[in-house]
């Protein structure tokens, strides 16, 4: 059982390979010139390094956001196209949940920063109970009010993410969508 993991929600392109739920390979690159120059070549490379091809893949886990709009959209586009053309199962996991999987605290807040504010995920007893985007000042107030341990630095634990994904439903490839959360600025107030 070969699983491809794709995460492109922030400045990194992370491509992982798992065999029966165990991590066998990981590529983590900073995308200076844009994710689009890295995603497909990294998938090609990780498979080649392991003497595999896309046709050996059995399923895909893709991080669908929130985060960089362009980043998640490109990761999602590649992932759903692979799932559709290879006719394999695909599951989506939010960036907030993917980070949370790698942290053992039961109650916690995960934050992802952008230039104007924070995406915030609140977990009580390992369950995501709130997922919102707040401007910086409101975000700070939210964090103060909740008084929970806050995590924003992280390193993905692919095996923990895989185990978490076992409880998630597969999504039909055509229906795989990004999780943007934040509204589009150009349409603000419409």
């Amino acid at each position, binding site marked *: 059982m070969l699983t491809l993991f794709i995460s492109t929600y922030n400045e990194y392109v992370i491509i992982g390979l798992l065999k029966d739920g165990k991590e066998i390979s990981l590529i983590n690159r900073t995308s200076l010139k844009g994710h689009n*120059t890295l995603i497909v070549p990294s998938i090609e490379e990780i498979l080649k390094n392991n003497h595999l091809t896309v046709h050996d893949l059995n399923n895909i886990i893709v991080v669908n956001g929130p985060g960089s709009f362009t980043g998640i*959209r490109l990761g999602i586009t590649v992932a759903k196209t692979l799932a559709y053309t290879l006719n394999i199962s695909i599951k989506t996991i939010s960036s907030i949940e993917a980070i949370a999987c790698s942290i053992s605290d039961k109650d916690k807040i995960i934050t992802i920063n952008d230039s104007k504010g924070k995406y915030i995920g609140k977990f009580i007893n390992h369950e995501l109970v709130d997922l919102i985007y707040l401007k910086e000042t409101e975000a700070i107030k939210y964090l103060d009010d909740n008084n929970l341990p806050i995590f924003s630095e992280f390193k993905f634990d692919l095996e923990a993410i895989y185990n978490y994904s076992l409880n998630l439903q597969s999504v039909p490839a055509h229906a795989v969508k*990004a999780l943007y959360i934040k509204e*589009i600025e150009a349409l603000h107030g419409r």
Partner: protein
Amino acid sequence: MKDVYILAIESSCDETSISVIKNGCIDVATTILTQMDTHAEFGGVVPEVASRMHSENITMVLEDVFSKTDITMDNIDAIAVTYAPGLLGSLLVGLEFAKTLSLVYNKPLIKVHHIAGHIYANNLVDKMEFPLLALVVSGGHTELVLMEDDYKFNVLGSTLDDAIGEVYDKVARVLDLPYPGGPHIDRLAVLGKDTYDLPKPMDNDELDFSYSGLKSAIINLVHNEKQRGNEIRKEDIACSFQTVAVDELIRKTKLAIHKTNSKRLIIAGGVSANKYLRNEFEKLADEENIKLSIPPIKYCTDNAAMIGCAAYPLYLKNEFSSLDINAESTLALF
């Protein structure tokens, strides 16, 4: 020679389109999913909305195009995709999609310039014979180009300021017409008369174009009529504007025909869907006794069929791209 099938993808603006093209000139199957209605609500294309919709719809468009033909991915020789110019976020979705198909099916990737696509759309009508004169008219282009061979573009004249399609959109907005404005001006113009006295752009014999003066004249005209409380006769303004705008294209193209002694003329780009323009150029072709080619209206607006046509000469020359290529929002073809 063996038939060549190219799967082509176009997503540079607000149409998600995929085509299967045979030998660079036969449209085997095409699907175009337009987002026009969505963007019309906002009065123009919202780039972030466009990118989102491309990503949401693109695999369904692929399924649809293959449902129209017996050709399967096994028969496809190459994947072609628009990589420039256009809305960056929209181009990137098509590009990532194309790269993924190239990886999965192990087919070469061909990057195609959007404007080359508009020009090569003419191959769907009649195989282009060189040398020829091409008039490119779109939201970003107003150019007269002499083509001596495939992908050999010699620009004889271009716009010094606004592109003609841009001016159509602006005039439509001033007249409170819905987006996209071009077809509405075309429709209204038929009902109106050329009654408004508008300035002629560039009264000289150079082959460059200038439309900003005409644009300002219309904006001022509408503004002044409103100030005076006069009725704005939209039909007449549309007709007067279109007459001046297209007559200028005709005049400059005629000059170019004489200067280059051209026997063949092709028109390309979104504005070539304009009915008045098409009629006037047919008259010009008759007068000048030259061969004219304008793509059918469905191939004038954005579509992937034209991208497949433009990819064919590149396929024959083995001009393939690696999977790390980038999109470019403003790259010029000539």
